[in-house]
């Protein structure tokens, strides 16, 4: 990993830790956002008026090539009822070797809109629209992504489906101009009826490879979100890709935290 990248990640971690407020319920461990800790989300936005700071470090130990480390700082804001705005800027190690939409340092803007709450007969639906501005290393063109999200509960078990499509603004070389992604996931609150601090999440996903002629990345992830205080949620996750290109992930790991205020 290059030294400037490492320094940036360390600086962001220190900054985030320094912003931790006094223990005081705000950010909800049962409200699932992408990468916190695994690559799935539920159909609900944070409450109107809430501000959340989220961050994490993701390790991707690839079958070929060096281990990639990503720092994922993000600010989310419940700007309207049922809508959250997100600003994110992932920082990645070995930024010059990246292919696909995700580039180190890209400014990522997102809007998640939840259409409805779940009822006896209807699941909850949401849509996410995102743009990646080419502010990062080797980044060209504005990438856009749209995702449909569905959440349905069965007792305390909640099932989630995410289906998204990314369009690259300026594909380079063998990069595909567009890729799809599909995730099926479940989440379950641990500890009922005496504890309500932990949510277990597991997912199965497939996504189109970034380069033409390669197989889909397909894998599984499992994660845990733990409500540490009223305002702070810790998360951790592990995963592996069982099919895909030669440089697919052998082991994925994420740790992170979210602070709501």
């Amino acid at each position, binding site marked *: 990993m290059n030294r400037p990248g490492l320094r940036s990640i360390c600086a962001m971690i220190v900054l985030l830790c320094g912003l931790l407020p*006094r*223990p*005081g*319920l*705000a950010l*909800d*461990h*049962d409200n699932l956002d992408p990468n916190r800790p695994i690559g799935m989300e539920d159909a*609900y*936005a*944070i*409450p*109107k*008026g*809430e501000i959340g700071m989220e961050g994490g470090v993701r390790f991707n130990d690839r079958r070929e090539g060096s281990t990639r480390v990503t720092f994922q700082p993000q600010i989310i804001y*419940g700007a309207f*009822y*049922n809508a959250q705005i997100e600003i994110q800027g992932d920082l990645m190690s070995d930024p010059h070797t990246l292919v696909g939409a995700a580039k180190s340092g890209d400014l990522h803007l997102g809007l998640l809109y*939840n*259409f*409805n*709450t*779940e*009822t*006896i*007969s*209807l699941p*909850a*639906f949401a*849509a996410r629209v995102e743009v990646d501005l080419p502010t990062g290393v080797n980044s060209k063109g504005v990438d856009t992504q*749209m995702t*449909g999200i569905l959440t349905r*509960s069965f*007792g*305390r078990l909640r099932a989630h489906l995410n*289906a998204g*499509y990314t*369009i690259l603004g300026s594909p380079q070389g063998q990069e595909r*101009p*567009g890729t*799809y992604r599909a995730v099926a996931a479940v989440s379950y*609150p641990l500890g*009922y*009826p*005496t*504890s*309500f*601090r932990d949510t277990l999440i597991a997912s199965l996903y497939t996504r189109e490879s970034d380069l033409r002629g390669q197989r889909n990345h397909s894998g599984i992830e499992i994660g845990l979100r733990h*409500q540490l*205080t*009223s305002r702070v949620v810790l998360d951790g996750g592990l995963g592996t890709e069982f099919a895909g290109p030669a440089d697919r992930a052998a082991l994925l790991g994420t740790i992170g935290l979210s602070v709501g*205020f």
Partner: protein
Amino acid sequence: MMRPPSNRLGALVVLTTVVFVLAGCSQFEPRDKRFYYRAFWNFALREDLAELDSEFNGVDFGHSNLYENLLLTGGKDVPAIEDRARKETLAFIATKPRLNPNEEAIAPTYMKLAWRAQNTFDEAHALHRATYDIMASDEPDKDRALRNVLAYYRESAYAITAKRLDHHRLDQLPYSKTFRQRFPLFNATIWSYHYLQVAVYDPLQAARDLAAKTQAVRPILATYRRYLEQPPVEWTFMPLTAGLSPSFAARYTEIANIFDNLHMLHDNISDILASELLPTWDAKRAEIYRLVDTYYLASADATNPMIVRDREHHH
């Protein structure tokens, strides 16, 4: 063979169309969660009077657990409510929870049945929490802080009316008293929660500093814990704020009215969930929403027949 991007975009358009078509469905309702009023005194109760805060966290479990169990058992299974569900609640309270529980994990079915009513509760509970935080904090101008949180609360479309409602008339609906007659122990446990929630205001208001506040709530906590062990089944009506915290009710009449109305709504919904007069989940949902829309939400003030008008009050 790879499908062209336009086909995939087409699939997304179809998905979005399906969502909008579903919007015409009668069960399509918005989530509309709102963050609490942000202030420096947020969580003052949790940080400074943790013993009392812990009891309120237990109370949060009680209502949701009751509603879920009433719904799933059809409101007829006495041992399931009086014995199992009540003891689950007492067991949770006994854990002295440091954080309020996730109510959607406690009552996933009820939340899907009557989300709008739950959101009404959530907003009022946030007002409850804010008032405790203000009382527990060293905020120098508590009147102003309480006015601000009340104003913020009243901005919500889910705000309960701040007018005094005729609770005795609201307790004479066709299904009223079903819950308390069939499940007297759990009903008295619920009323014990409401006792705790309103009895602490005057002592907190009168205490000058944190040590005095800690001491002031101790006798109330002792009484509340005695009620949990031996539920006051002899009570014939829910505790009212003016009876237990008269100074608070006189000074902050609108807030006191909201809390009394909130507690009455809890009783009404328990009766609806327990009543055979509303035999299906759809019928229960429709009656809960009719009740909330007609008699409880502040948006119905102009036409609400349950509001006690001044003239009636003076009589």
